[in-house]
């Protein structure tokens, strides 16, 4: 038995300590906003925040979370109005949408550390997130829009 904190709530879990956080979230806690895409840290579909930093939940054993706070898309905002979510809506970013939770979580973390990211910052911060539908140009534009709002 161990505890993890997700979106401000403490959960008691009884799982294999090696189970990646991704599967704990999805199959144990029933929080399915976070997606599986590759399981090896290559696609970013599973991106969540660990103490505010973007991490790939598929490659993080739940035992490594410790008492650090996990934030998932379900906790990014209570009303879907985080500046990143607003910018995503404004730019019509999602196509199928499957990768977009990971894209938004990565973008939100990037903007926290770099409120005014350059194109090179965006390349660095976002190249771990694949989008098979090909929404990259809109992701880039939406990050800039969200950055402006967050700077206000």
């Amino acid at each position, binding site marked *: 038995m161990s505890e993890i904190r997700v979106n401000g709530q403490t959960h008691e879990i009884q*799982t*294999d300590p090696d*189970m*990646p956080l991704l*599967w704990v979230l*999805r*199959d*144990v806690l*029933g929080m*399915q*906003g*976070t*997606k*599986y*895409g*590759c*399981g*090896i840290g*290559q*696609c970013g*579909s599973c991106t969540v925040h660990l103490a505010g930093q973007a991490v790939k939940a598929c490659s993080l054993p739940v035992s490594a979370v410790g008492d650090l706070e996990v934030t*998932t*898309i*379900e906790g990014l*905002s209570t009303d*879907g109005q985080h500046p990143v*979510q607003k910018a*995503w*809506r404004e730019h*019509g970013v*999602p*196509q*199928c*949408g*499957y*990768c*977009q*939770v990971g894209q*938004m979580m990565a973008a939100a973390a990037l903007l926290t550390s770099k409120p005014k990211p350059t*194109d090179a910052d*965006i*390349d*660095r911060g*976002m*190249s*771990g*997130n*694949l*989008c*098979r*539908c*090909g*929404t*990259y*140009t*809109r*992701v*880039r534009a939406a990050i800039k829009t969200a950055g402006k709002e967050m700077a206000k």
Partner: protein
Amino acid sequence: MSYPLNKSGQGIAIESGAPSVLRPALSRRAFMASLSAGSLVLATRFASGASVSLVGSSALDFEPDLFVSIDPTGLVTILAHRSEMGTGIRTALPMVVADELGADWERVVIEQSIGDARTGSQNTDGSQSVRGFYDRMRIAGATARRMLEQAAAQEWGVDAEECNASEHKVTHKASKRSLGFGELVEAASKLDVPAPQSLRMRDKKEYRIVGKNVPLTDMDGLLDGSAKFGIDARLDGQLYAVIARSPVLGGTLVNYDSDAALAVDGVVEVLEIPPFEAPHSFQALGGVAVVATNTWAAIQGRKALAVEWEAGPNGAFESKAFEAELAESARTPGRVCRDEGDAVAALKDADPADVFSADYYVPFLAHAPMEPPCALANVELNSDGQVTHCEVWTATQNPQAAQGILAGTLGIPPEQAIVNVTLLGGGFGRKSKPDYVAEAAILSRDLGAPVHVTWTREDDIRHDYYHTVGAVHMQAVQDKQGKPTAWLQRSAFPPITSTFVAGARDGGAGEMGMGFTDLPYALDHLRVENSPASAHLRIGWLRSVAHIYHAFGVCSFPDELAHRAGKEPLSYLLELLGEDRHLKLDGVQYSNGGESMEDYPIDIARLRHVTERAAKLAGWGRKLPKGKGLGIACHRSFLSYCATVVEVDVSKSGVLSITKVSSVIDAGTVIHPDRVKAQMEGAAVFGTSLAVHGEITAKDGAVIESNFDTYPLARMNDAPKEIQVEIVENDAPPGGVGEVGVPPFAPALCNAIFAATGKRVRRLPIRHHDLSWS
């Protein structure tokens, strides 16, 4: 040779057959009631808090048409029967219904249809949703509108012709009276449904929704993470399965260690799925399933299985050796598919110095949708072992094909299989092949519990229905001005038919008609041929299908001929297109996407127009320093016209950067311009992935690549930096959109690389080539 081409000629429609009993689209009420097994957390989007009554759900509703229903509060429910995989189709088709109806878009909810033959084809494939259902949606909306107008006219004692439905109410202008849709529901329900021929369709300028970029139906759920995909389907008490499948197609199971798998914490069962019988079509591949209480445990259990396989005849397949064989086949005279003049004699008689030949090659590609194939099945049996209930929740492009394979697998009539369609995390053709649905159903039947099958990424890359490898051989005779006087082109590729007919080796008319037999160039002597090739992997259709390798040859070759003749490539291409005309393809087996050549001619003027506009948009003709270059390609596919200019910057050391893409599409009538634009942007990135990175290889019959580390896709840092799109305003009937941007991309890119570096890429992917220059 023939196989059942679907309406678009794009892939195979394995329909479930005409069921003898038609099943209604399940109402939300019936849908919830059917979940005796437990609480379902999948639902279509509904207006929050609204009293939602759905198609066929309440005696009080007005249901003039399968696709539309209105409840007494005025809430309009529109049935979406095509699958949402990112094109915005769950928004676009309902927009047409709502506009014909005169509904307020804010008071419309969208319900996703289960697999239901009454809706017509649900095979969301071949870029045909709008083309195939635009008129049907107009009829649905206009039927409901006419009946509401008649109901209001009756109430007021006026002529129905004087009444008009708009903004969710019917108005009689002369007397300034109006009644809301909800108030008219009861009276309208009592009227006879008018015949479609008697309906007046709205004039385009009356439309208030069509042509506008309305917010996507699914946007909120996609942004807050609540949208449900196939991977998210859940029923109480469900088990989670992953399956070990033979690394070689058709291999047989020899041995495995179920004890080791069962020793993994959370694993509850290990069981075999019987192998398919050739041809494999959409059957489960077969293998050993590890079933657990969560996905991770199932994956760990599978690792412990230590399965041994006997490879069988495909075990000798090597993609490298096959490449040489395929190229040789493409250089060897084959079956004639189009023949004008006498190209063979002209080539034979020509001075060898005037003959130019080139060979192009595109390797196997995997679909790799971000959401891998997934399905949840709940199959219940009675004490005699007969299926009493079969229901699945899955990300499928073709729920009726899923019904078909469930019927074949379980021995039930197709209409007994209830197929609920979730959102799809990408499809690209992979999810029109429901083998994974059959797997889940077999496991649920055998275990007596709901089972969710997840394909891991490794499963997806190693057991795909691959986009086939293709070799294209091109030959032309050039006159003194460099103009081609004779032209021969031949392609060889393991055909899609091999998935449905074991041993098939000839390219189908559908595949040959994708950018090859419909070559748009003006040539006196032309021959188009196909040469045979055998399949050793499962072959299937992928976004834009045979256009990929055909366009690569057909749009690269003119650029080569132009440079060889010292001509400017754009004017050379425009001259090659010849006079504005409708291309005649007399005597050619050509499906034209299932549409007539009168309604959808091959219109060279439209192809020229997009080409000229793309050139203008890109600033064609600018002087660029060495290392930078522009390349152009134009191509008609899925009854639409597209031209793309790619601008590249190649460093001296050979690092490629795609700085700008300029695309113009003419898809006739367009419903949601922003989604057309998005599809074109996506096509440029999809094109980058396939042109720069994509290659599936096989050794000892097994696919080598397994995940995104070995099968890379375009990322933020190497995708096109800027993509500009123009949509030609056109009242022509709607053509396809989703796939149309893909074919011209790779040749335009390679033409640009040549302009920048003088290096010609004839074999994809580009990453294997040294692009350095000095």
